[in-house]
């Protein structure tokens, strides 16, 4: 039994100056967060209701991140490639939902049959987003299946720009307002807390979508094939699985989830723009890495964690340090967390599951 001390000494002997720097960086970040946390506790500024609303909002935005992250994680699990265009697939889903709702609003369906219009919008956004995701696979992945690692990265970046600025040209540069309808307005009392009804609906829809996804992945033939390809692509081919079809199906499934995320995002934030996709996509990827890339429950966990950190973080850590207007730094917190995870725990919370083993 070697004790803790000799192990530490051994570690110290092997450490290079880069390791020392990394440890120092870890301590620094922990110190800042800890200091902010304690200082925030000593001078509480928010009441119970505010904390509850931060929490609920974090869960809502986290659910949206989780839906986006699922698309990343499934694709990455099979192909080991980042899809920069995934965020723009999400954006197109949001536009599709928005225009469906507007169309329903124009012929009065939205007021009389809100559930039906919601279902129509859901269908539209899933179809459009799945179609675009398949297009992304065709353009940016299939030609490079056996090629260099950088080519798909760069071509999805290009595709992302094409999609963004096509949306700008087609739908206009201004923000687009989601039509509001009475069925989702107002608030509900849950455990004595008033929570906006739309947030409850969005949470419910997101959780339902994730349940359906789990069923698809665990119970259907295609889901089984997906897991087989993610486990070992060559063995899957030997078992007679059509890998091309599985990959297309994976992209379509991920795209459909991103489309649902687009609809929910629009319902919560009421406004969408052509530019919103890219950075939500990056955050979705961050959530996927946080949970462990290639790992489906991990993506859900990662999404919710990222949402919570983003919504609670400013009040929890930054307020205590005395930063002016901490809410402006929300994105900075999210990105810092993303970078930290990439550096210190690239395996994520639940561990990664990848088709191609790391060299």
């Amino acid at each position, binding site marked *: 039994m070697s004790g803790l001390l000799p192990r530490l000494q051994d570690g110290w002997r092997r450490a290079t100056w880069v390791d020392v*720097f990394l440890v120092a960086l870890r301590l620094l970040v922990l110190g800042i967060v800890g200091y902010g946390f304690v200082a925030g506790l000593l001078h509480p500024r928010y009441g119970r209701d505010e904390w509850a609303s931060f929490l609920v909002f974090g869960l809502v935005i986290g659910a949206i991140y989780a839906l986006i992250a699922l698309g990343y994680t499934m694709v990455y699990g099979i192909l080991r490639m980042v899809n920069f265009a995934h965020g723009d697939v999400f954006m197109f889903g949001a536009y599709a939902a928005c225009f469906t709702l507007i169309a329903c609003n124009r012929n009065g369906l939205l007021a009389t049959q809100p559930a039906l219009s919601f279902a129509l919008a859901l269908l539209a956004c899933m179809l459009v987003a799945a179609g675009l995701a398949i297009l992304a696979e065709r353009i940016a992945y299939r030609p490079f299946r056996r090629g260099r690692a950088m080519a798909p*990265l760069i071509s999805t970046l290009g595709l992302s720009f094409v999609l963004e600025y096509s949306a700008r*040209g087609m739908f206009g540069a201004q923000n687009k307002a989601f039509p509001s309808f009475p069925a989702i307005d107002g608030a509900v009392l849950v455990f004595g807390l008033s929570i906006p009804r739309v947030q409850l609906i969005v949470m419910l829809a997101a959780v339902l979508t994730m349940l359906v996804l789990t069923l698809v992945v665990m119970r259907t033939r295609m889901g089984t094939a997906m897991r087989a390809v993610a486990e070992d692509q060559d063995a899957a081919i030997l078992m007679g699985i059509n890998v091309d079809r599985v990959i297309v199906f994976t992209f379509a499934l991920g795209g459909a989830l991103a489309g649902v995320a687009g609809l929910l995002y629009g319902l919560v934030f009421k406004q969408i723009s052509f530019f919103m996709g890219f950075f939500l996509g*990056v955050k979705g990827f961050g959530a996927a*890495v946080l949970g462990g890339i290639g790992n489906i429950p991990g993506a859900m966990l990662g999404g919710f964690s990222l949402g919570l950190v983003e919504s609670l973080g400013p009040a929890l850590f930054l307020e205590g340090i005395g930063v002016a*207007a901490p809410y402006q*730094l929300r994105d900075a917190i999210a*990105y810092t967390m993303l970078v930290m995870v990439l550096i210190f725990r690239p395996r994520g919370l639940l561990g990664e599951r990848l088709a191609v083993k790391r060299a």
Partner: protein
Amino acid sequence: MTLPARLEPLALARDATRLALAVTGACAGLVLVGLFGQFSNRWLVVGLLDIGHALMLAIALRAGMVAARGQSWAGAVPRALLCGALAGVLVVLLVMAARVANLRWMLVSLTPVTLNRVGYMLPEQQAMLLLAAGGAAAALLGTALVLLPPKARRLLMGALLGVVLAGLLRELIRSLLSGLGEIDGWAFSYDGLLPAGAMAAAGIGALAAARPGARHFAALPSRARLALQLLCLALLLLLPAVTNDFVAQVMMLVCLYTLMGLGLNVELGLAGLVDLGFVAFFAVGAYTVALLTAETAGVAHLGFFAALPFSVLFAALAGFLFGLPVLRVRGDYLAIATLGLGEVIRVLVLSDMLKPLLGGAQGIVDIPKPALFGVILGSPTRLFYLTAAFAALAGYCAWRLQHSGIGRRWLAVREDEDVAQALGINLVQVKLMAYTIGAAFAGLAGGLFAAMAGSVFPQSFQLLVSVNVLAVLVVGGIGSLPGVVVGAAALIGAPEVLRDLGEHRYLIYGLVIIAIVRFKPEGLSPAAIRQREVA
């Protein structure tokens, strides 16, 4: 392929229909994203063809080239004619459908004016005939381009390119040739290229394509060739001084992006590190110069040339500090990590937290122009020479670095990290070196940018800049020094010259990036090593 003779018409119709549908889709996309609307009221050749329709014809031409693939004249010509004509008819049918459906509440670019312009404001049958004829002609031309013997093909291509370039770059050409008063009368008018000018441009293009002196040039001794090339370069450098501020400004931007491209080339091209947070170092350089020189910032009131070394230094330091933690991250994670870092910097600069120092969204203004030996470098021309001098210096440094020991180690790491490590290369050290040096180049570019713009705002340092620089490298050829210049000229210079491309330029960037990665992965001006690899 030997098909039974009676199946031949069927196959022909099928091929042509498929191509026509693709052409129609592409044309519809052109109208939907607003490119057609933007360009349909600008002439390529006055009175004959506007740029919007020219784009449509280009699509049909491309389809004609595809139709000719693997076919003889007898098979290709009917395919091309049918495809072009069918596409013309389909486009007009789509326009009619769009008028009926009236989707303007959703698709903002489908204005009645734009829809009318697709058919030249003609009644529908005539529009159909006209577009079908045009499409068929363009597709036929495309077929001819593929099937003609090489010499004729090159002449035709040269003539076409000559007209297109003269039409697109007419403002540049007019401003370049403004000294020769006569050219305005017959070749160009205020609206654009006149038919006579188009003929002349076609002739010049064909002549250039024929390359009459090429054999003599190749026969010259290498020293003389180098001298001639240097002479061309010197003439190019003289351009801004003898023409106007617009040319100087465009060339200055090209130089600035060349400078940044050289930096990213060290990271991506030599060491193989994908960096999407490159703009952060550019921002560090710009803010350093701004803080150290601006009257309003009140940190120090240095001159520009005293502040510039600091901006290089601080950017390199930032690169070093960024690089330390992220460089152990694997390939595509690195892209995301650097992107995240770049965004953190931008959010911090924008925030109220650092507003007292960096000015928040208002930025820092009133940065004095650089002064050298009492001469204030205020005009675009002078700033261009300053930027060009630094770009040349940076190019020399990059060239020396590439062929030094560290350059070889970078290449080894890029090709295979494991092998490089086995050969005794310290991966972290070598990558860190690349990252720091790349950041220093970006810092230099940032410092120059601050001085030439006279003010710095957080909005100038968006992710778009990083992507632009990446696109410059991809287009020019990753890892190639001349490629950086070619890429910067093609991506930064050309859209500046095609003034009213506006925000559509990013759409074009995206398309160009996808096309290059797919069809010409070694870039327009590939590095020697890549050339050897591909060959």
